[in-house]
């Protein structure tokens, strides 16, 4: 059985206690809402996309340490990147979480996930994968909303 230390790495607890990019953005920023139907966690992702660049991103809502820290780390990782890069990061993260659906397209090996790799331990707790990916799936919805 995997131990708690695999799950609650220090960097994760740090992002949980001191979340980055927490808040909301006014329109014209777009937003999307995500639910974890199993545990009730809710998250909202705000996204400012200009000329194909994610110029700003924020998140609100409430949830467990994994969903909150994952969202916090995510915002740090995608801010300032262009949309294609962001989508590549999402794919790489979801692949690490074993839940990337598109298994045909190759994963960009040159990308590094940095701090996000701390979340790898979540895979040993399958129930928590949904916590870790909640913000990411919601980000994808927000990207779609930005395009529309």
């Amino acid at each position: 059985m995997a131990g708690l230390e695999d799950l609650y790495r220090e960097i994760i607890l740090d992002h949980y206690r001191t979340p980055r990019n927490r808040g909301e953005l006014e329109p014209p920023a777009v937003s999307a809402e995500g639910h974890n139907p199993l545990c009730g966690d809710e998250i909202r992702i705000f996204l400012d996309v200009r000329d194909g660049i994610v110029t700003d991103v924020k998140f609100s809502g409430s949830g467990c340490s994994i969903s909150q820290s994952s969202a916090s780390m995510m915002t740090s990782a995608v801010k300032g990147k262009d949309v294609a890069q962001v989508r590549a990061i999402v794919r790489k993260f979801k692949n690490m979480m074993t839940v990337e659906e598109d298994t045909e397209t190759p994963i960009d090996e040159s990308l590094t996930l940095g701090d996000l790799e701390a979340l790898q331990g979540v895979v040993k707790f399958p129930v928590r994968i949904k916590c870790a990916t909640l913000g990411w799936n919601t980000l994808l919805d927000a990207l779609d909303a930005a395009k529309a």
Partner: protein
Amino acid sequence: MSLDVTTIRKDFPVLSERINDKPLVYLDSANTSQKPRVVIDALAEFMATQNAPINRSAYHLAAQATERFESTRSKIAAFINAPRAHEIIFTKNATESLNLAILSWGRANLNSGDVVVLTHMEHHANIVPWHMLVAERGIVLRWIPLTSDFQLDLTDLDSILSGAKVLSFTSMSNVLGTINPVERLCAAAHKVGALAIVDACQSVPHQPTDVQAWGADLIAFSSHKMCGPSGVGILWGREDLLNAMPPFLGGGNMIADVRVDGFTTAPLPNKFEAGTPAIAEVIALGTAVDYLTGLGMHEVRRHEIELSSYVLGMLKGRFGDDITIHGPSNPEVRGATFSFAFRGIHPHDLSQVLDQHNVCVRAGHHCAKPLMRLIGANATARASFYLYNTTEEADALADALESASDIF
């Protein structure tokens, strides 16, 4: 005579399981109960030596299976004091029972503007089917609010019920533990000519049930919460009401005749039991009912009142204001199901830490999101006790809670 829990625990194989060399502390029985050896054996024994279809074949093995299947129907009827065995309908779970009751009765009887009254402590199974009728037929929902001690606030009951066609409510909240005054509510519904539907999932496994004393019209509950196998739900309804309801699922077993241009339905209970039922599971549920009857439902209830008193006092004593229990403080009006918030730690994280101590509690919205919004939380942790749980296990819960603070 109170329950001999030490002996009872030996009846449940899983309670002797050890994980990482520590005992299992199973506090999630409001979700699903553990199963005694006799029930597992009845199921396995039937499958190994007596497995056969029911109702359809005349040979000995099939006749015997049919008789055993029907004997569970009689046992369930006796267990809840239903007047007639054929008023007991087997479904796949309480959710199907509620959908059958709500959608079959509702589609035949409810129209645009008709009022249905629910309470603010309902499980999704007693909400979503009503929402489906809101969308389909334009019915209107009203909600009975809660008091600050997490009981139904019946102050304005008469005006809430006025003009209503249905009152549908839980006999005991799966989140708060609150036991509702079923007789009073059924009587109030009938006074305005409304139907009384009771979601009895959380009370039937834990205390004596008498549908006639309740004066209910339809009630639903699940085998898997009362020491029986998964895959079986029960709907009880008054004979005249069930007879007047249209069928819900169509297929074999529920027909009197089928022609290319139409069908006629079989009498109760078959009318509502389309297809091959959970034969082995229903038979094993009969064994579970025998087991519970053997223990005595009054004794089960008394044991859980004692446990509740202990848990409430002990948790408050050890943690004071660090713990908030969302539910009545009086053990006499509640079951042994405790939702709580602890030191601001998210319930999901809490249950993860408790799991390291093999303490199994549920974290989440407990399929009661409207209630959670009222409580003001996305989620709570919930420890639910049953006839096999002990005060030592309550202590183990508290010890494990203590350790959670070390991390967060």
